[in-house]
């Protein structure tokens, strides 16, 4: 269980987060949707221990996050440009198992780019590498900060499928930040809607069915419409009903 209890998080004299409590079950795929600037990225940075400047605590099974094996995909692929694709993965790999790295790159179809630099790859390919990197250590917690933003639909879709494939294989606890409600419904077991200033949970939506595997699934549209009919402004952080 990932247990997030934040009393207060300040940034330049503004309270971004106040009294936030969020429990995420082991291996749950949780999506977070909220208006821009509500502090979603900050929250991920706090969970990953990149940002320790807050009051409160975050634990995974009572263990401090500094000891947890974490995978993180940022909004940009964030590959290190002076290392080859292979070296990028090797750098973060704990086992330094060269064969496993090559196998993972083959699995995502990048066997011809193992010794290329990031700039030689398209945006979609770079995200694939970032995805492989995020999973290479079999993470207990996977943090995804709008990882498929600014990609065309087929590329994003291919990456979502890869993400689900790896998720099924390693079963990490996932926190997925997105703006795309359909994407959130299609991938997750649970969607948490947020409001800003300070960040708070306005609606916690559990999806009862198993994972959907395609954005085209008509059930997704149905769930989305039901939600938006009930709470038309939920995406901008308002829970007023019709």
């Amino acid at each position, binding site marked *: 269980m990932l247990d997030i209890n934040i009393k207060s998080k300040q940034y330049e004299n503004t309270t971004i987060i106040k009294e936030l409590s969020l429990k995420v079950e082991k291996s749950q795929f949780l999506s977070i949707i909220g208006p821009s600037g509500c502090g979603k990225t900050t929250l991920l940075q706090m969970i990953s*221990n*990149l940002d320790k400047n807050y009051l409160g605590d975050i634990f995974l099974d009572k263990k401090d996050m500094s000891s947890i094996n974490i995978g*993180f995909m940022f909004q*940009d692929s*964030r590959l*290190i440009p*002076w290392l080859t694709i292979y070296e990028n993965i090797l*750098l*973060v790999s704990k086992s330094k198992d060269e064969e496993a790295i090559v196998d993972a790159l083959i699995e995502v179809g990048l066997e011809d780019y193992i010794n290329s*630099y990031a700039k030689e790859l398209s945006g979609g390919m770079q995200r694939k590498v970032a995805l492989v990197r995020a999973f290479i250590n079999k993470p207990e917690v996977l943090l995804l900060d709008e990882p498929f933003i600014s990609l065309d639909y087929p590329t994003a879709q291919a990456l979502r499928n890869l993400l689900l494939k790896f998720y099924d294989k390693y079963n990490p606890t996932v926190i997925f930040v997105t703006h795309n409600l359909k994407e959130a419904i299609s991938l997750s077991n649970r969607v948490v809607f947020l409001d800003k200033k300070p960040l708070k949970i306005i609606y916690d939506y559990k999806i009862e069915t198993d994972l959907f595997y395609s954005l085209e699934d008509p059930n997704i549209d149905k769930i989305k419409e039901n939600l938006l009919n009930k709470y038309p402004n939920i995406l901008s952080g308002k829970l007023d009903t019709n």
Partner: protein
Amino acid sequence: MPNKTRVISIFAIFIFWEILALLISSDTFPSFIEVTKSLFFHLSQGELIYHLFITLGRVFIAFVIAMSIGVFFGILMGTYKKLDNLLDTLLIIGLNIPALVTIIICYIWFGLTDTAALLAVIINKVPTVIVTVREGARTVEQKYMQIAYVYKISKFETITKVYLPQIYPYIMASARTGLSLIWKIVLVVELLGRSDGIGFQLSMFFQFFDITSIMAYSMAFIIVILLIETCILRPLEKRANSWR
């Protein structure tokens, strides 16, 4: 390897020199051929090689020490704002003290010794390395450091594979300018207070008004520095930038 234009430009300089010497036709402006002859003469006497190695040794030691201190403080000052504020005035003073003043002061304080000579060169060079490397440390991208942190990469790998490669171009730039600055100062240091090295020899030839030998010695030294630059520093820089 030197490319075609580079070779052509070197030849053009030699031809221009030769023609100019013919036109002026004065004892104080020896021709290229005379200088080359003198160069071979001094080489055959063995004393050129001896003094060349003495000077190169000094350049090497001063270079290594100045680069190490400069890189160390450059990184610290680029990373920690408070330390930067504390040392910045000192740095500006260091940048603006004339080389000659440091040399004279070092000789007076520490005597006409090799240590004093090297110290003077190092004091002159360190501030310029700090300035360049500090600029590099300021441009280090936090987003890559975050990768190192999130994935709990060891301190050693974080420094060698994530941090230093970002500063490497700045270190290389200061190394290249550093080499040329250092050898110029080393010659002055030798001229003022040593009894060996190229600088000392130049001062001797100056007293005899032996301009041909002065030019021959200068030529030998410039060739060596060009070789170091072409065969060591430039390939190193090229390798470091291969990913760009």
